């Protein structure tokens, strides 16, 4: 029996973010000119670590295995929400630590960490959101700080321009989504996902158009958050313009938040069995998945700028993760569906480390002011071998080579797609993975093989940034054998949704 106190305890991961944000407010109010921001970063990092620890403990203790509804069903804490909060916590901690060196010389550090923790709060709420209203509010809570974070380098044209584009496309998408929510409400008479699901049968019969348009528009809003085609336009510009740690945060944590809410809204709120006649969202996601991964990978292949390449590769990975929804054809039985959805979660989990690490490496290179193109990375392997080994691990793991957890999660994903009866989707994914090896290898080639045009002249090796990069690398490698610890959790979390 879950008591009232225990219910609050279940929200402790989100509370950790909130408390960290409040602490940052207080510190900023009393000591606004904290010189190096170490304390601020520490508070944010502790908040992230506390959130990941709390969610880890709750996950392992199994108290929320069946899902616990709070506030009359507005929030739900279950395996999936805890798993994703774990991701948000770890990415927040890594990004906060790495930012110490990155923004050392810049003003408004407290606001920076504050926005990070507030966005993380929004994400952890998104992971638990069980009604369309909470979904929208939490989405805005995570998005609005993100816009500001992208614009953090406010004297930098790219940063400001990227933020503005992000905000404008975001506003449009939010408008589309909230309009979609209103149509669904009109058709079903409820915002609570479970009630929406139970009212679907009647609504499909009575108002198929309203319901269909509404759901399609909600999917549009979610596609914005996950940076899926065609709502991806903001992503390359925002990631490129943003400070690299923020890009890491957005492309890993924010994207995962979009996915967790997409999983819950669609699987819980709009069971495909009931709504297939009105809007076959599995087919819709199949289209989105194929288009997203293909466009992301093809565009990444032609980039000259490493950060932009990573931005497009991040779109490509969104395409892989979409397989989790696109494979729910019910052809392989419920077990196969849980497997492929769980595999998608696992991929986002591993992605949270390897992609964050890759962007933090870019942050490191930006910190050295070496430039952003592939040529600027030439010969880096000789100057900073340890960091370059870490970057090699990241990109090869992203490509799906067996040096890190990315190999296993991709394998699970494609195998799950085959098991769920959509082998062609796995084939498209595998072809795209093969293509991705091309552009990932370019980074490795530049770092290790190409000679530098002129001496790089690296003088400082920033400790905190190195620590964050290496931690991400070690975790990525350890997840190759260590994914067994999480795969059971992910598959069970996925199975409990159906």
């Amino acid at each position, binding site marked *: 029996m879950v008591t009232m106190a225990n219910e609050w305890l279940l929200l402790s991961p989100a509370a950790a973010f909130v408390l960290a944000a409040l602490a940052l407010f207080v510190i900023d109010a009393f000591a606004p000119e904290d010189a190096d921001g170490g304390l601020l970063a520490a508070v944010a990092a502790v908040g992230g670590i506390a959130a990941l620890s709390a969610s880890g403990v709750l996950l392992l203790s199994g108290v929320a295995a069946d899902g616990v509804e709070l506030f009359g069903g507005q929030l739900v804490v279950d395996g999936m929400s805890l798993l994703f909060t774990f991701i948000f916590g770890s990415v927040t901690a890594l990004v906060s630590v790495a930012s110490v060196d990155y923004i050392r010389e810049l003003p408004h550090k407290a606001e920076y960490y504050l926005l990070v923790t507030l966005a993380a709060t929004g994400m952890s709420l998104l992971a638990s959101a069980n009604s369309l209203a909470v979904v929208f509010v939490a989405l805005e809570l995570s998005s609005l700080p993100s816009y500001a974070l992208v614009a953090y380098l406010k004297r930098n044209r790219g940063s400001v321009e990227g933020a503005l584009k992000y905000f404008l496309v975001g506003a449009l998408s939010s408008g*589309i989504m909230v309009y979609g929510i209103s149509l669904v409400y009109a058709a079903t008479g409820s915002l609570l996902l479970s009630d929406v699901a139970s009212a679907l049968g009647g609504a499909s019969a009575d108002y*198929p158009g309203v319901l269909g348009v509404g759901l399609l528009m909600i999917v549009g809003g979610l596609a914005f958050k996950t940076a899926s085609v*065609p709502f991806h336009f903001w992503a390359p510009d925002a990631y490129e313009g943003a400070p690299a740690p923020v890009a890491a945060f957005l492309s890993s944590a924010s994207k995962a938040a979009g996915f967790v809410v997409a999983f819950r809204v669609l699987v819980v709120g709009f069971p495909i069995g009931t709504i297939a006649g009105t809007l076959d969202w599995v087919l819709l996601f199949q289209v989105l998945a194929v288009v997203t991964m293909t466009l992301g990978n*093809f565009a990444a292949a032609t980039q000259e700028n490493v950060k932009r390449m990573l931005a497009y590769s991040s779109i490509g990975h969104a395409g892989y993760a979409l397989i989790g929804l696109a494979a729910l054809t019910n052809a392989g039985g419920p077990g196969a569906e849980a497997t492929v959805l769980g595999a998608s979660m696992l991929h986002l989990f591993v992605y949270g480390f390897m992609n964050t690490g890759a962007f933090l490496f870019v942050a490191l290179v930006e910190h050295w002011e070496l430039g952003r193109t592939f040529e600027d990375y030439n010969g880096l392997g000789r100057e900073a071998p340890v960091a370059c080994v870490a970057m090699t691990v990241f990109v090869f793991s992203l490509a799906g080579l067996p040096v890190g957890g990315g190999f296993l999660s991709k394998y699970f994903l494609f195998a799950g797609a085959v098991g769920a009866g959509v082998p062609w989707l796995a084939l498209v994914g595998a072809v795209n993975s093969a293509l991705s090896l091309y552009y990932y290898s370019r980074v490795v080639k530049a770092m290790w093989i190409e000679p530098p045009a002129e001496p790089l002249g690296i003088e400082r090796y920033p400790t905190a940034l190195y620590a964050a990069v290496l931690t991400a690398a070690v975790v990525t490698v350890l997840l190759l054998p260590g994914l067994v610890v999480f795969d059971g959790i992910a598959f069970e979390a996925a199975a409990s949704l159906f």
Partner: protein
Amino acid sequence: MALIYELTPAIVFLPLASFALALFFGRWMPKKGAVAGILATAGALGLSVVTLGWLLLSGEVHDQTWYTLVDAEMGVDLAFGILIDQLSAAMLVIVSLIAFLVHVFSLGYMNDEGEPGLPRYYAGLGLFTASMLAFVMADNLFMAFVFFELVGLCSYLLIGHWFTEDAPPSAAKKAFLVTRFGDYFFLVGVVGVLVTFGTAGFAGSEGFPALAESALAGETSVNTFGLSTEGWFSVLGLLVLGGVLGKSAQFPFHTWLPDAMEGPTPVSALIHAATMVAAGVYLVARMYGFYALLPTVLGIIAFVGGFTALFAATMAVVKNEIKQVLAYSTISQYGYMMLALGAGGYVAAFFHLTTHAIFKALLFLGAGSVIIAMHHEEDMWEMGGLKSEMRTTYLTFLAGSLALAGIFPFSGFWSKDEVLFETLVHALGGSPLLFGAYAMGITAVFLTGFYTIRMVMLTFHGDPRSETAEDPHSVGWNVKFPLSVLGVLAVVAGALNPVPIEMLTGAEVDFLHDYLYATPEALLTGAEHYSSLSSYGSGAIAGGEIGTMLVNAGLSFGLAVAGAGLAFGLYRGGSPARHTERLGRVQTLLMHNYYQDEYQVWLAEGFTVRLAAAADTFDQGVIDGTVNAVSSVSRSAGARIRQIQSGVVTNYAALVVLSLLALLVVFAILGGWF
């Protein structure tokens, strides 16, 4: 376990140590590593003799796994182990004896002549000896394959010893490639055996011959890949036989062996008598329990053997270089061994292997002695009259030649006679196909007598035909000692198994026969077990077994004497004529070795290279073209996709809305909303 079996691995490790010493420290060692090699092979010989002695006295065999690579529980059993039974113990003595004598002879042939690269040479000899010894004591096919390959590698290294000249590297490559071609099938066969039986062990009820026997008897079943049990086993046997034919230089893989004469002569002796070439025949004998189950394969072996015996003998008739004659005689003699194995004469085959090892080593070392004396001139027409100048060499060479020719009472007569006798008896016993093999074998006896005596006459008799032949270089003790040892053995080795004497007098003198029959039944590797497996019947002519024996012995002896006499008659006198020129176009054909090399070169250049070129064109054009097309399409598609990202935010908004509308229309139609 007897103490001697604790020491058995040292038989391999001693030459291996001399290999390592010569390789790394040879430059600073006495005689550049020769002394270490001589001591190591002497030690190996001593241990082998003691092993053989112990086996004779106690009858205790030895079969032990030393190191397991992959456990049998994993599905296949890959291990290294030692099997000492009657066959391997005897073979160890032969190999280490020849290796020891070759090392001693090398002092005279290589050191005294001041040849370069001596440490490399002795390192090669050491590894060669060690590999062959390990191959001989291997207790399973997998291990045998590993050392079989090492033997091939060492022969490559040693044949190509004088790598700065043109011919030796080419000959070494040829030897390597041709034997490799056969070994390719062998490797497939090893994998096939492992997959079929899960083990490659030779001996005992767990060995694959025993498993094959029970599978053929229908007691157990194995995976035969859709073929009948016997059909699949025959395929396996033929695959392994590919390696055997390559190594033992049997038709059509014999072409490498004459070219291998480019190596130093002691190496030729080692290759021909005891190591490389013997390895193939030994392998068949080693897994004879498997071949004995397969009459079809035995028939093929017999026919290939008989044909090779005759085929090679015809080519030896016209050769002018002393080592070439010997090379073709080797091919021919191994043909006899294969004939014996194929015709069910297991004991006869091993008997001939033994005597041949002795007299062929003797002949090569004798030829080496002649070559030293002739300042590395090998053409017999430049020699002549050497007998008075080189007494020891002449006498021992003559003993070896008479043994090769099969003249009574030299050792070769007894063993060759037994080979032919076994073939004839089994042919009479209801296997008429063996008559063909027998006919080829018996015809080759005549040719053998002819070319052997021709070689002796041209080399040692008559008047000296060149200045060096008038005043030959003298040879030292290190040449004469091995020649003497082998010369004596070549005369008396026939006493090992003089079956005709036993038949005529009833005296129990078939020692080798009894020895090979003494293998404990449990190992299932003894001649007694093999004879129980054999499907050949026995028949007789001229009033029974003795009559058959007398007919055969008379025929083979008569033909040998006729061939020898013809050669003696033709080539005696001070300056013999080139009689083979009278053969006309036949001689041209024989001199060109039936154009075997030409067709094999054509196979390589005209066929394989063209096929490879076509494959390359396909790969470059179609495969690479597809890949390149995909990548260029990808890049141009990527570049186009890049253009969508115009950077203008109003475009983004428009695209977002338009694509949402497009989706809306499509799904509205699909869902039937309106």
